[in-house]
């Protein structure tokens, strides 16, 4: 096996795949970044689909436009939508998956049957799910009349996908303040948790990080990033920013589809905890609840984090579910993945679509690269 000729063959056999992935992933990403800095599709003198189209370099103009131009409010609303969608979708899936996993861990009769039921939506296409739930959430029918059909109660009055309501409205200029508050809240929560577990060092780091976040805000360092973005044109009264109620139904459908995935991950994690460990805790006088609180759940923490990252990156890319449920033109349910499609493949505004796609890639990279790095380092330290 250490034969040099065979090692050479091994490399040659891998080469076609490396070249394909090299071109189709990295080459194309490079090209997308390049395209995002041109006027492809914006210049009326150059038909975007002509055989030879001259694309001029415009620097970061497209990025500036989508972040600040009044008419481009769709993209900013898409970012806000992605934020709320991600938070609620990830929390929903983790909570539902945890409940399902804990219920199925109680040595129940028919465990396999229940598991099959809770996981089956994962085998469906997002387009199928979207189609089904669009019918489920028809105002005046579906879920809304269920209380009436089942118990004779008054029907639910909510128009789901068609809702124009904006909850928790906020001003674009206040985003740094909200992000700072959220950051401090999360870090404070971590600090308290670490302290209660007597992990003083970790707790101190969390407090330190919270102070840094606060200082960055107080020293107005955000202004370097945010002032250029928070132009008067960026505030769009016709499309106020906030949590668009139209997303609620889409989030419910997404949780219905994906909570089986978190359930499967958590069950695998729970089964990974050695039975002897649980038994030992019981012998020491732990109740069943304590066994979960002190033995099982702490071991699940890394798996919960993995699940959050995988789900988070899915929700950053979400496209087909929104397309199937809300259609490509629902301004209240717009997400970046959908905008790349409408701007790029319907309007042929390729440069603008590329800029949106590059921003999507940036956010996904931000969470996936550290994740991949830690996963592979861990498997390497286990001796591959």
């Amino acid at each position: 096996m250490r034969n040099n000729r065979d090692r050479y063959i091994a490399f040659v056999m891998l080469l076609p795949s490396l070249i394909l992935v090299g071109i189709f992933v990295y080459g194309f990403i490079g090209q997308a970044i390049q395209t995002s800095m041109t006027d492809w599709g914006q210049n009326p003198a150059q038909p975007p689909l002509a055989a030879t189209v001259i694309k001029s370099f415009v620097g970061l103009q497209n990025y500036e436009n989508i972040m600040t131009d009044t008419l481009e409010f769709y993209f900013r609303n898409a970012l806000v939508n992605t934020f709320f969608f991600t938070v609620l979708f990830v929390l929903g899936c983790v909570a539902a998956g945890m409940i399902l996993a804990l219920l199925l861990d109680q040595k129940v009769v028919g465990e396999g049957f229940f598991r099959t039921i809770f996981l089956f939506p994962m085998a469906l296409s997002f387009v199928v799910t979207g189609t089904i739930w669009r019918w489920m959430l028809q105002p005046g029918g579906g879920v809304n009349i269920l209380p009436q059909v089942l118990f004779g109660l008054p029907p639910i009055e909510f128009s789901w996908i068609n809702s124009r309501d904006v909850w928790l409205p906020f001003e674009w200029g206040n985003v740094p303040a909200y992000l700072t508050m959220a950051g401090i809240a999360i870090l404070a929560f971590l600090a308290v948790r670490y302290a209660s577990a007597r992990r003083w060092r970790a707790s101190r780091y969390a407090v330190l990080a919270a102070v840094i976040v606060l200082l960055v805000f107080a020293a107005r360092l955000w202004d370097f990033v945010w002032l250029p973005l928070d132009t008067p044109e960026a505030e769009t009264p016709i499309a106020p920013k906030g949590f668009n109620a139209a997303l609620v139904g889409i989030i419910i459908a997404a949780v219905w589809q994906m909570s089986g995935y978190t359930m499967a991950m958590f069950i695998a994690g729970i089964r990974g905890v050695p039975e002897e460990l649980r038994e030992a805790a019981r012998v020491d006088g732990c109740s069943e609840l304590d066994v979960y609180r002190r033995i099982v759940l702490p071991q699940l923490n890394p798996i919960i984090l993995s699940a959050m990252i995988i789900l988070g990156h899915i929700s950053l890319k979400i496209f087909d579910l929104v397309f199937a449920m809300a259609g490509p033109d629902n301004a209240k349910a717009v997400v970046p993945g959908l905008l790349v499609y409408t701007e790029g493949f319907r309007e042929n505004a390729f440069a603008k679509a590329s800029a949106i796609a590059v921003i999507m890639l940036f956010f996904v990279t931000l969470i996936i690269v550290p994740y991949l790095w830690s996963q592979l380092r861990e498997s390497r330290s286990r001796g591959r």
Partner: protein
Amino acid sequence: MSMTAYQWRRYTIRTAIYVALILLTVVFLTPVYLVVVTSLKDPAAINLATAWNTPETPYWQSFSEVLDAFGPRLQNSFALVIGATMLSSLLGSLNGYVFAKWRIPGERYLFPLMLFGMFIPYQAILIPLFDFMRSVNLYGGVIGLILIHTVYGLPITTLIFRNFYVDIPDEMLEAAAIDGADFFGIYQHVVFPLSIPGFVVVVIWQFTQIWNEFLFGVTMTNTDSQPITVGLAQLAGGEAVKWNLPMAGAIVAALPPLLVYIVLGRYFIRGLLAGSVKG
């Protein structure tokens, strides 16, 4: 014979667990009920207020109408899925074998660089891909779509096979090498025969993923080469839809992956969990 307090408590908890599980089962299956009921109704009998009622007589015509409406899209999806699944599993198996058992220059970087390809938002490569496919005259055909799905399937298939092959003891490969087997001989006589479960996991995973895919399907095809998901989106799109058709369409589009899931669920879950890299 009366129950002790402990027995009572245990009994109550067990009952609560089963009640919760049954309620959740009902919640999970509620959409299925509505889909089936609606797909079997005469379009004239469908209205919002009676959405939950069962049809008086099953109206099967929706399904034949849907099959007509889908037309070549079902065949496109089957051709696409079979082609891309076979290609990406074979290449993935070879790649996994190399990454798991051979020392190659730069593998520490090449493997993660390859894996990153399965997490990227495909929107980020969509426009250059569109450009490229047009320039090589593969835009808008099933062959082009097979190529696309094969390439973007490589990271996950390589990962699953690599993790699978790492567990084959090196001694088995060394023994074959001493008997004179070269790179291909070892693959053919040792690695491949042990790969059947790995192939089942990968084939099932690729089959369901590619069948269910929509983004490439809607951007890289023309009317003749669209897959079934695009057909369903068109069937259900628009305002004045007759809901029996989208619902019957959803059933038809969901059936192949659903059958695979029900028959081979155990392998499906393994593919699912492999996507989180190392659980």
